[in-house]
């Protein structure tokens, strides 16, 4: 609303300057928004500082060796989180691949007039509902539904194609693949919702131009619409990846919590978030410091991913900015 509208509206009614109270409310409102915005940033900084402070003794004592060694034995004071770092990245990347494939497909299906608008809206809301399911329910669903479903095909793959490292072990129960699959479904609503918004905001004239040049619907979608929306789609992937890195409960239930460093999809593994969730409640003394160190590593990984994502995003959006404007 511009200033002129306000003046016009006031002339029609009884015009009067803002009272003291109005000014007071305005100022308080502005002050409080600024305060809350800064408080949020301060909170993040405080959390990082506090974790860093608690982790400092462990950082001094173990240094870089914590990141490169593979044993976690609190009785002997040997700690290493390489399997957890690997597991965090591996499960998140697998989950991201699954989530992106399905999420973008859904976004295209729900934005390119495949369905009547009303049905589209209903489907969109149902998919966004996936985000409201608690993590622990995903975990239970994984244990009782996904793992029994995956076991026969996984073990068939292991028996017949066991030479390929990807299928190098049998799937006994919890493992990387069920964890990644459930993770993929968990980040799917994030990816599909943001991708859909990006696809919807592609200007209609672009589509019409492509169709006018004789492109088929298929060529229009893949050749024009998706590339134009790619910045938004990529942004959704970065957000989804960030969520996958920090996901705790479902992974702690499905990944197997085993200190193993394996490329096999069926081998149990561990992630940083699951390690923290499992060891914090009973940890004391030195173990707490090491766990804080592990938390710091997780924070750094998440930060790096987000920065990298933001950087690529700016580059990509510069490339496409000519088209969308």
């Amino acid at each position: 609303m511009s200033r002129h509208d306000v003046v016009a509206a006031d002339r029609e009614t009884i015009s009067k300057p803002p009272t003291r109270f109005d000014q007071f409310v305005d100022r308080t409102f502005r002050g409080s928004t600024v305060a809350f915005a800064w408080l949020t940033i301060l909170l993040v900084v405080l959390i990082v500082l506090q974790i860093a402070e608690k982790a400092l003794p462990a950082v001094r004592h173990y240094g870089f060796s914590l990141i490169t060694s593979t044993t976690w034995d609190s009785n002997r004071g040997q700690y290493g989180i390489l399997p957890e770092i690997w597991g965090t990245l591996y499960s998140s990347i697998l989950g991201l691949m699954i989530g992106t494939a399905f999420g973008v497909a859904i976004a295209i299906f729900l934005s390119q007039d495949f369905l009547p608008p009303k049905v589209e809206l209903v489907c969109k809301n149902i998919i966004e509902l996936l985000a409201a399911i608690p993590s622990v329910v995903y975990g239970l669903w994984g244990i009782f539904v996904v793992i029994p479903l995956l076991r026969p095909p996984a073990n068939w793959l292991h028996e017949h194609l066991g030479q390929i490292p990807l299928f190098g072990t049998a799937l006994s129960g919890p493992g990387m693949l069920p964890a990644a699959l459930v993770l993929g479904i968990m980040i799917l609503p994030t990816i599909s919702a943001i991708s859909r918004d990006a696809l919807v905001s592609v200007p209609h004239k672009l589509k019409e131009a492509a169709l006018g040049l004789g492109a088929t619907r298929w060529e229009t979608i893949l050749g024009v619409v998706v590339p134009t929306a790619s910045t938004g789609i990529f942004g959704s992937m970065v957000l989804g990846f960030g969520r996958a890195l920090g996901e705790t409960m479902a992974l702690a239930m499905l990944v197997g919590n085993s200190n193993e460093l394996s490329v096999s999809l069926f081998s149990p593994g561990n992630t940083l978030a699951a390690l923290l969730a499992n060891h914090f409640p009973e940890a004391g003394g030195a173990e707490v410091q090491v766990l804080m160190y592990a938390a710091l590593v997780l924070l750094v990984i998440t930060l790096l991913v987000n920065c990298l994502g933001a950087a690529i995003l700016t580059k990509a959006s510069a490339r496409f900015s000519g088209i969308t404007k």
Partner: protein
Amino acid sequence: MYFCHRSVRCWMAITSLIVVAIAGCNAANSSTGGAKHVKLSGAGASFPFPLYDRWFSDYRQLHPDISINYQGIGSGGGITQLTNRTVDFAASDAAMTDEEISKVKGGVQLLPMTAGSIVLGYNVPDAPAGLRLPRDAYVGMFLGKVTKWNDPLIAKANPGVTLPDLAVTAVRRADSSGTTFVFTQHLAAISDDWKQGPGVGKSVDWPVGIGAKKNDGIAATIKQTPGAIGYLEYGFVKQAQIPVASLENKDGEFITPTTAAGRAALASAALPENLIVWLPDPPGKDSYPIVTYTWLLCYKQYDDPAVAKALKDVIRYALTDGQKISAEMGYIPLPEAVAKQVAAAVGNIKP
């Protein structure tokens, strides 16, 4: 713009109403609390939680003026809270070490309240319940040396049972736990390989297997994984209906975990004066090999005499009437001599 202002005012009015309402509620609450009412709060081991919870609610029925709040946050958490004096009592499966006790001003009285068996549950399709497992077999399974269920070690102990050619999946706790401490203590007592290898602790560096969270996580994983074997507390197996193995004890007998077999194991060792005793490998023909006491941890000195009096009364109730319901809930009632000894030690708690 006008509308904006009005909605801000409206919000302020609503907020202030809510604040007044909350303040009113608080005032109402605090005025109902009588002077005689005693509140006890405790935290610690999750293993005896179902039993303690039952004891405390039964006790509350008899004594409405005393309410007890116990949270099963884990043994380690309980000890930390006791040391920080944020609770009136704590509970632990792994008794406090002398070093931990020395951190608590005025001293700590440890009281064994009940005992439990740790059992091996398994999921082997078509195999009967009560599969006999020799010592080498179950240590081997958790060391990764026994990898198939039709291993000669197991087959020899179970004549007439056809065992499948199924891979063994060891299931163990991912979180650190008093149960793991007791189980690894037993494994270290019967196997040098275990003692030199993973060792004893609330969490150890497991050579093989899958980690699951808490007892119910272990139960769910065993049920869902063909070929799985895992250790958990007897009470949870009863609920989940998982078949339980008969384990070879020190005298070479195969013993099914029952209340009687647990009591026989407890009877094999006398309690010393500090009431801390471990039974890593109890002797006796009828003894089940993996049993443990679980302790209540109390201060020796309380600031508030009412709290001390209430706590002592609750403990006496648990040691007498409380023991009668232990067995039905899957715990081992204390042998009578032990219960008497513990009741005498309650006298060490001073107001």
